[in-house]
């Protein structure tokens, strides 16, 4: 790959590319990226968004994505190009809502100030003046801040349905219009404060709701992101050029360097290497492939360069097949109707009916249309679902921020509702019940004095065993020793010289393994001693796996293993944990099993990590993934848990159930308030003052009740 020098002048204009950098943890990382990246050739500026873990890089147009990724690599960070526009759209929607909330809040406070003066006895000209000022503030504010509700209600009415926004829209616009009329004729009651306070409370609920939803992104998006954005194509004349993934064609020959991700499915023509399939299967052991073998898009070439003949591109790739499965699975989940929506389906017609009844009743009693309409507005304002609109989002936001502090990231508010209903748990094996990475056994056999050499050898390779060894030694305050003549031979290992003596980290010879037919991966270390030190690697069970499954069972979620691994390997783990297990399952099998469970009336919780679990995670009633999961696993799961412990599973279930208890209490409180207030409103006894007090009290009670959830995650 040749490096193209950026234009000296920026005549073509610098472009901005966004990258996801998940490894940013501290202020030091921010400083490092923002200061060091612009020193790389062609890069003008870098700006970190720590909350989203993204970096916006301003660079010369000539720089391609691999150049930029190498620049990240040079300063020690792994980055992934971000292509999703959807996230930008979502944050724009949230911004619109926050702006509307700001306007409604400002207007409500100022109008309330004037209303209090009216209620405390201002009359005559003063009252008229205050009403006029209120009108001047309220009418534009309602028109602006009410738009989210007006458009949603209009959409619902046009297709002949009704939602929570219809009574809100009718209530707010009738109240504003009637108050304007009262102001013009100099009447005693204006409802501007009620209409604005209603909007402010409801918008607060919407903002919280939108924040929760913003975190949920579609899994398929991430899937396409993880395949390489392009590849180096070998032309017929021997030249090579970088082409983007969508320009690749069947029959192209691609040069895949070590450490590169495949952009298309193909057959290897030259060279051999090992491939990391963890994105596809979740299995951590690399697979060896040589000429004639097939390789799949999304896998990572570990050892040496290979030439690949493309057999499938775009939608025909194996990875795209999984994306299709996931899309279908996600559609079945979208049929779940959230509790708040179910409540509003009953609520909206009831409110309309009550308001219409009051109007008709007062008309029949001979009160005249003016007074009847005022009563109907009072009913609409009183019943408008302030507390109901806050009941669910506030509880969810409180519990989610508490869960986040305990290492449980909830991506979607409805996930808590679904998790509270779960009645069985299906778990993947590799990477979920186990740590999903080879952990070295018996590194104590390496003499303390020689650990620095091993660390340095391990740092020279990006083979998973080397990475694991490096991590295991990393905690022991071992700096790498200086090595010379470092050579990495694909499939064989790393050789080098330390103070003149040859040292090596290599594949063990059969006799060194002691003759026992052990399937575990191993490396041999030649450190100058008489015999090499052999280190074996095994994928260990997560700590607390047994206890976590026991707690889940006690909560009424019996666990089962559902794995793509060999049957014997699954049976061994299942036996050790005392649960049932099934192996040799393809992604579609897992999905089919989950769909069968759902059809049988169960509400399965799926816990998995690999790309092969993606469709199952999306098809399950609710799903969780460890933070070590593939991007697709993390994106498809509703809840991601950090750390190695599985105890987050029962913790999350308990928190979800506590949330649903509080949400139901909130609903009872909101409905109880309506039962008390609606008869008063229908009797015509509710003035704007009473409405203001009733609305804010009920909302505050609901918020206070939700705050009890801060201690719910144990």
């Amino acid at each position, binding site marked *: 790959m040749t490096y193209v020098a950026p234009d000296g002048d920026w005549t073509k204009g610098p472009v901005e590319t966004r990258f996801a950098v998940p490894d940013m943890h501290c202020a030091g990382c921010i400083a490092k990226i923002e200061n060091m990246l612009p020193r790389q050739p062609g890069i003008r500026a870098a700006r970190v968004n720590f*909350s989203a873990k993204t970096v916006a890089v301003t660079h010369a147009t000539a720089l391609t994505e691999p150049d930029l990724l190498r620049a990240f690599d040079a300063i020690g960070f792994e980055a992934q190009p971000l292509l999703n526009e959807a996230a930008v759209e979502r944050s724009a929607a949230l911004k619109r809502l926050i*702006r509307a909330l*700001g306007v409604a809040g*400002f207007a409500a406070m100022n109008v309330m100030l004037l209303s209090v003066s009216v209620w405390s006895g201002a009359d005559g000209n003063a009252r008229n003046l205050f009403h006029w000022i209120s009108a001047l503030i309220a009418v534009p504010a309602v028109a602006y801040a009410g738009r989210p509700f007006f458009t949603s209600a209009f959409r619902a009415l046009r297709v002949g349905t009704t939602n929570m926004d219809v009574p809100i829209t009718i209530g707010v616009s009738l109240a504003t219009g009637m108050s304007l009329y009262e102001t013009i004729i100099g009447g005693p009651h204006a409802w501007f404060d009620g209409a604005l306070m209603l909007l402010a409370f409801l918008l607060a609920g919407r903002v919280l709701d939108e924040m929760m939803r913003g975190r949920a992104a579609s899994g398929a998006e991430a899937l396409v992101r993880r395949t390489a954005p392009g590849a180096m194509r070998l032309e017929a004349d021997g030249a090579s050029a970088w082409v983007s993934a969508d320009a690749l064609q069947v029959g192209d020959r691609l040069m895949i360097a070590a450490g590169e991700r495949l952009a298309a499915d193909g057959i290897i023509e030259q060279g051999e290497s090992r491939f990391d399939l963890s994105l596809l299967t979740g299995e951590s052991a690399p697979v060896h492939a040589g000429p004639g073998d097939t390789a799949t898009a999304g896998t990572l070439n570990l050892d040496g360069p290979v030439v690949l003949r493309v057999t499938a591109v775009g939608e025909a790739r194996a990875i795209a097949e999984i994306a299709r499965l996931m899309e279908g699975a996600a559609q079945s989940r979208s049929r779940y109707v959230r509790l708040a929506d179910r409540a509003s389906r009953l609520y909206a017609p009831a409110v309309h009916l009550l308001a219409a009844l009051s109007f008709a009743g007062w008309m029949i009693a001979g009160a005249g249309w003016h007074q009847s309409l005022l009563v109907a507005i009072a009913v609409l304002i009183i019943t408008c679902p302030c507390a109901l609109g806050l009941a669910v989002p506030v509880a969810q936001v409180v519990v989610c921020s508490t869960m986040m502090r305990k290492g449980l990231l909830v991506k979607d508010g409805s996930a808590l509702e679904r998790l509270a209903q779960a009645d069985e748990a299906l778990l993947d094996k590799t990477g979920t019940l186990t740590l999903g990475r080879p952990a070295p056994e018996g590194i104590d056999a390496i003499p303390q004095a020689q650990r620095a050499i091993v660390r340095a050898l391990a740092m020279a390779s990006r083979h998973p065993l080397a990475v694991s060894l490096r991590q295991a030694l990393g905690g022991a305050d071992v700096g790498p020793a200086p090595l010379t003549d470092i050579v990495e031979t694909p499939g064989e290992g790393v050789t080098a010289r330390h103070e003149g003596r040859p040292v090596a980290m290599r594949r063990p010879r059969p006799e060194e393994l002691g003759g026992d037919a052990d399937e575990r991966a191993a490396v041999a270390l030649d450190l100058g001693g008489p015999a090499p030190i052999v280190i074996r690697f095994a994928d260990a069970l997560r700590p607390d796996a047994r206890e976590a499954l026991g707690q889940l069972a006690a909560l009424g979620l019996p666990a089962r293993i559902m794995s793509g691994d060999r049957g014997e390997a699954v049976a061994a783990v299942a036996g050790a944990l005392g649960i049932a297990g099934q192996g040799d399952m393809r992604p579609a099998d897992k999905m089919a099993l989950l769909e069968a469970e759902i059809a049988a009336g169960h509400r399965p919780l799926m816990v998995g990590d690999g790309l092969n679990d993606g469709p199952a995670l999306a098809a399950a009633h609710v799903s969780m993934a460890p933070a070590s999961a593939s991007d697709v696993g993390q994106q498809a799961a509703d809840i991601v848990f950090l750390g190695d412990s599985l105890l987050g599973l029962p913790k999350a279930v308990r928190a979800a159930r506590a949330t649903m208890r509080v949400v139901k209490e909130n609903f009872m409180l909101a409905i109880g308030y309506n039962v008390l207030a609606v008869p008063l409103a229908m009797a015509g006894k509710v003035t704007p003052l009473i409405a203001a007090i009733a609305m804010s009290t009920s909302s505050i009670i609901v918020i206070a009740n939700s705050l009890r959830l801060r201690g719910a995650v144990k």
Partner: protein
Amino acid sequence: MNGLLILIPVALLLGLSGLVAFLWSLRAGQFDDPDGAAMRILIDDESPL
């Protein structure tokens, strides 16, 4: 009553300036990265400008 004629516009203007300040900070991106803002204060900026 005369006091009101001064006080009400003053109150409204103060409130309005608060709203404008909020909308400006929202537009200027001050709410884009709350976690990062908390972290940046810890960065030692050694390069003298």
